[in-house]
């Protein structure tokens, strides 16, 4: 993947998938367009979470708050003010990042489980505000039927918009992970103490990591509003955050694309198994346990493991370098 001269197989595969995704809406049933859109949005949150959990090693337990706050910010600007739509779209990520700054500033002072539980408490305070402030946020009824500009009214158009932003965000996140900052973040995950010893202000980098992650969660929040045109207090509840975390872990938290896979698995499971049985959570639980026992690095981690030797082979043929860095595909 790190090969500089020739696009690797991974790039080819991604290209094929991308072409495929572009041609979905006109041909596949509408529901699939919608579900794919939902998978993009949710996996963007999951991937942004993975920036800090999988690559930053932080116990970001209440990531859903930033997603929800952004969705609410967008929804409020669109429904309560007469500002232009794009301002609403900008407001989401900005508010999410600001929230991330405040919550993160407190949280980076603590470590691991303490970090996570403090975040849950702070996030739950925000949830309580959204939940209680009926006149402003609509309380637990939420805000529904949010008007979109005519360009985004049709499902197909919003699908393309979501796809475009999604891919753009992925490229950005990939770039960030491959940047010096990304390396440093992973170093902090592996060994924060050693990082201090080589002159890295661990807390500051963790906070920066949180800001980046919350920004992308904010982007996902806006996309959620575009897709569903509804916001509700559940978005900020800790259960959703836990689900997002599960998606990361299921897909493979040390891999870049793992969270997408995890999200896709969980969403498809609940949509397609939910048709046949109420007990889809039971099936989900069993699948998760099987994954933990047999694929400890998550599904994508396993796929990578299987593919890696082959890739090495290919690269050796091409006299390439085996650059199996921290970021797998």
């Amino acid at each position: 993947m790190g090969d500089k001269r020739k696009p690797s197989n991974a790039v080819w595969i991604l290209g094929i998938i991308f072409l495929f995704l572009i041609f979905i809406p006109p041909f596949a049933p509408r529901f699939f367009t919608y579900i794919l859109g939902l998978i993009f949005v949710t996996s963007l949150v999951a991937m942004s979470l993975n920036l800090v959990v999988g690559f930053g090693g932080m116990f970001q337990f209440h990531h859903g708050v930033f997603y929800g706050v952004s969705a609410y910010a967008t929804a409020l600007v669109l429904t309560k003010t007469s500002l232009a739509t794009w301002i609403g779209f900008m407001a989401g990520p900005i508010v999410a990042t600001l929230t991330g700054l405040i919550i993160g500033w407190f949280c980076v002072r603590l470590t691991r489980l303490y970090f996570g539980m403090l975040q849950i408490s702070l996030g739950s305070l925000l949830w309580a505000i959204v939940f209680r402030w009926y006149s402003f946020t609509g309380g637990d009824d939420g805000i529904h039927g949010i008007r979109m500009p005519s360009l985004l009214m049709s499902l197909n158009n919003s699908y393309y918009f979501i796809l475009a932003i999604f891919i753009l965000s992925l490229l950005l996140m990939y770039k960030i992970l491959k940047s010096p900052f990304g390396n440093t973040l992973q170093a902090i995950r592996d060994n924060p103490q050693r990082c201090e010893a080589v002159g890295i202000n661990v807390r500051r980098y963790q906070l920066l990591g949180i800001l980046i992650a919350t920004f992308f969660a904010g982007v996902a929040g806006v996309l959620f509003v575009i897709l569903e045109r509804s916001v509700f207090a559940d978005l900020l509840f800790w259960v959703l955050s836990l689900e997002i975390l599960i998606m990361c872990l299921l897909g493979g938290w040390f891999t870049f694309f793992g969270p997408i896979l995890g999200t896709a698995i969980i969403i498809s499971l609940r949509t397609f198994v939910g048709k046949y049985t109420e007990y889809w959570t039971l099936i989900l639980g069993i699948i998760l346990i099987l994954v933990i026992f047999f694929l400890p690095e998550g599904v994508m981690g396993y796929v990578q493991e299987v593919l890696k030797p082959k890739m090495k082979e290919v690269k050796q043929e091409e006299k390439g370098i085996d650059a199996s860095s921290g970021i797998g595909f």
Partner: protein
Amino acid sequence: MKRILWVSSLCLWGVIITLICLPFGAKAQGPIKIGIVDTYSGPPTTYTYDVRDAFKLAIDEVNAKGGVLGRKIEFTTRDDKFKVDICLSMAKELIMMEKVDILMGTINSAATLAVSEYCKGEKIPFIVTFSKSDKITGEKGHRYVFSVTENTAMIGKAAAAGLAKRPYVKYWIAGDDYEYGHALADGVWGNLKRLKPDVQLIGQSWWKVGEPELTPYLTAISAAKPDAVIFATGGASMVNAMKAAKATGFAERIPMFIHTATEHSTLAPLGLDAPEKVIGTSNYHFYYPDTPKNKAFAKAFKDAYGREPKVGALYGYLAAQFITRALTKAGKMDRERFIDALEGMKVDSPVGEIEMRAYDHQAMLPMYMGVTKKVAGYPFLIATDIVTIPASEVMPSIEEIKKVRGQ
């Protein structure tokens, strides 16, 4: 290597596409499809199961007689786990993939409003069976949404009408801290103040939904010595409130009004441990009204499922009646004609004739106010001294609806 990847990925996608497209073959004149998305896990099932079961009972009967318009009626359910996002995507799945003709269900208000907005865009009739928000057919009402259940505005009116006849002056309001609780409290209080201007509100307490221990709240309330307390609570908190009222002896000292306190869903799980003398309102009791129609309905339900019908059963029955009648009247499965037929339709039910008000698509239900009491022969408490508050006193006026809709 590269070719293998190409070919395999193409094959994979090919398989997926085929799988996706299989169920979407040409659709013949099959059955009429109804989709129900509701919460079938967790506490709300106390209510939703009855809706589903009574609906099934009624639909089975119709199908046994050959269905409607020569077509059978088929329904399919989805469990949304009481989560708005899941509810929304399941509703979309029912509409886009199952291609249901009519959508039903939802007990979660936020989910109902979200689905309602979606149905408005898709022009799919949506029949709300349990969600109590008055925004559904009020402020956010539209052509495609119908409600066969009471809403907070109706509860408020009915409760106020009942309470105004009682001598209490100093009131305390307590309840679940969520939209339903607040809307209900505001509804009762606003109407009560209008009917009886000398009532005073001396304090309020709100607890989080699902709060297990209500004794502290009750202690705080009895400290203020109100004449009566209005509890705006529902679901699992109902049972908690009743238990705490019993344990502290609160119900003995201060009269308390709780909507649905007299309802069988609340009283059945408590058995004989429920407090007496609690004032409650409900749309339905399996023992009241004491008419042959209701008796037959309660018996049929009990024969089929081995339990007495609760209020949900009435809603499920009403939904089935309205749908089948409206379809018959429409003459064919056409959504617009179905809606036209449904507006203003009257159906017979265990609680008498019920009209679907044409203006706001709200079923006009009467309310029964009673007081809990131990009665020999029942393994649980039942409501006594029942006063019927007719639908005309329960329904918000069309002017009020117009006002909230900003017309």
